[in-house]
């Protein structure tokens, strides 16, 4: 059974269509990623699925319940961690968790096994007010509070935004463990490199879904052979690639430029006086696919 079904969902704010005819389904126990930049419509989708915002058109269900008609049922079974820290800053760590447990008519003890791995990391600070916690600790507390009523579907809106690479890795390890508990997880992120950690992903921009599939399948659908090229003069190389008639597309990619082309590119670049040229095929990443899809759309 599908845990979440989204059918032609739409949300319009004044003259801006934030969510434009979005449809997807998430299987039970799946870790599903909504991947896209700020302003893509990710938060609006989350708010509609968690019954905090009414759709202008379309429909959606969470665990079989309709997001409009059955909003009370959904509020009991969904866990939601908003992008912005929204716990009670004046309550301590312990008080926040107890508060959320009580609101959902349960106790911390009853569901302790679910949050244990995360909670022990913040337990040394349990008497500290939430407002005084570091960013990483706040994030862990927010996750505990979203889990304390043992939700069947967990919504995480940009949990890793602005977080350094080490903490991001740790957060994804926590999600991996939660997945073993058979909780369905929908997570949004602007970091393309996190897409590989999801079972399936939807790439989203300007309220529209560009592609939905497993990360492997999204990458496999990339139509061209992709090359990585570098030279001693990177800025000049990028300009030369952009001007070259052989090149279909090119853009900076870390240490290299990624490029799709036909013909003898290496010779052409050498002719322009670039030195230290290295050209080799390279595996396609989700970011390459996103760039390709964006450019096709424009």
């Amino acid at each position, binding site marked *: 059974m599908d845990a979440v079904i989204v059918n032609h969902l739409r949300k319009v704010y004044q003259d801006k269509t934030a969510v434009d005819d979005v449809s997807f389904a998430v299987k039970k126990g799946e870790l599903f990623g909504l991947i*896209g*930049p*700020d*302003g*893509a419509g990710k938060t609006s989708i989350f708010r509609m699925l968690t019954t905090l915002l009414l759709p202008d058109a379309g429909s959606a269900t969470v665990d079989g319940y309709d997001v409009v008609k059955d909003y009370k049922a959904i509020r009991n079974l969904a866990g939601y961690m908003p992008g912005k820290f929204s716990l009670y800053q004046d309550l301590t760590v312990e008080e926040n968790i107890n508060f959320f447990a009580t609101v959902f008519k349960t106790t911390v003890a009853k569901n302790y096994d679910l949050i244990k791995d995360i909670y022990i990391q913040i337990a040394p600070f349990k008497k500290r007010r939430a407002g005084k916690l*570091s*960013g*990483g*600790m706040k994030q862990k507390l927010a996750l505990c509070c979203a889990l304390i009523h043992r939700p069947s579907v967990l919504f995480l809106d*940009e949990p890793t*935004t*602005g*977080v*350094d*690479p*080490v*903490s991001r*890795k740790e957060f994804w390890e926590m999600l991996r463990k939660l997945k073993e508990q058979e909780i369905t997880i929908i997570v949004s992120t*602007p*970091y*393309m490199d996190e897409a590989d950690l999801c079972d399936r992903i939807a790439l989203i*921009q300007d309220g529209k879904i560009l592609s939905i599939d497993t990360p492997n399948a999204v990458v496999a659908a990339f139509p061209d052979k992709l090359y990585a090229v570098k030279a001693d003069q990177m*800025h000049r190389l*990028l300009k030369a690639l952009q001007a070259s008639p052989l090149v279909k597309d090119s*853009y*900076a*990619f*870390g*240490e290299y430029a990624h490029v799709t082309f036909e013909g003898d590119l290496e010779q052409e670049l050498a002719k322009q006086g670039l030195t230290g040229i290295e050209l080799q095929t390279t595996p396609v990443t989700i*970011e390459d696919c*996103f*760039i390709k899809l*964006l*450019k096709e759309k424009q």
Partner: protein
Amino acid sequence: MIETNKLSKRFGDFIATNEITFEVDKGEIFGFLGANGAGKTTAMRMLCGLSTPSSGTATIAGFDIYKQTEQIKKNIGYMSQKFSLYEDLTVTENIRFFGGIYGLSNQQLKTKSQQLIHDLGLEKEAKKLVGALPLGWKQKLSFSIAVLHEPKIVFLDEPTGGVDPITRRQFWNLIYDAADRGVTVFVTTHYMDEAEYCNRISIMVDGRIKALDTPRNLKNSFHAASMDEVFYALARGAKRSE
């Protein structure tokens, strides 16, 4: 352009920035990396003349970090993901406002704002409120305004957070162009691929600079395939996190 010697900032018992020493050359793109809570923001606030160091010395564009903070502020540009522009002013009004603050004449403002709007292809949006622009455009506009008064150094605090991959690259083209004009760029980012676009980078852990070199040398010395691995090797043992 930037020279620091054992620069430190303490808050009570807590040493946010612990004896950092480094130099940044004119026209260099310098990446200032570190885990959350490593002390980057505190260091950057000192370098911008917004916070007085507890000890150590530094000069920014030749000006002393203790005594000449006003001259420092005139000679630098600053942008961050959070503080960008006035959302309820138009594109043109924002340019005039910030240009005016930095003391540009009306004539300069006029030519510079036309040039900027043309370079960014914002002709149609010039009279629109900044709040109505997509994030990527806001960030590009924000950067262009930060360098409008031709500062010697521009400080960029996570300028590309949450921006789509194409705009992120366009943003870096603006950075390269500024560096080509001789502007020194001091940038923080959590995108490790962007660390590769810098001439040199430093990585801060628990208040100290643990590594400082070109991306290539850092990868070689850590036997790492990517900057991500270098960062992970250094920051994994961090005691502080924020």
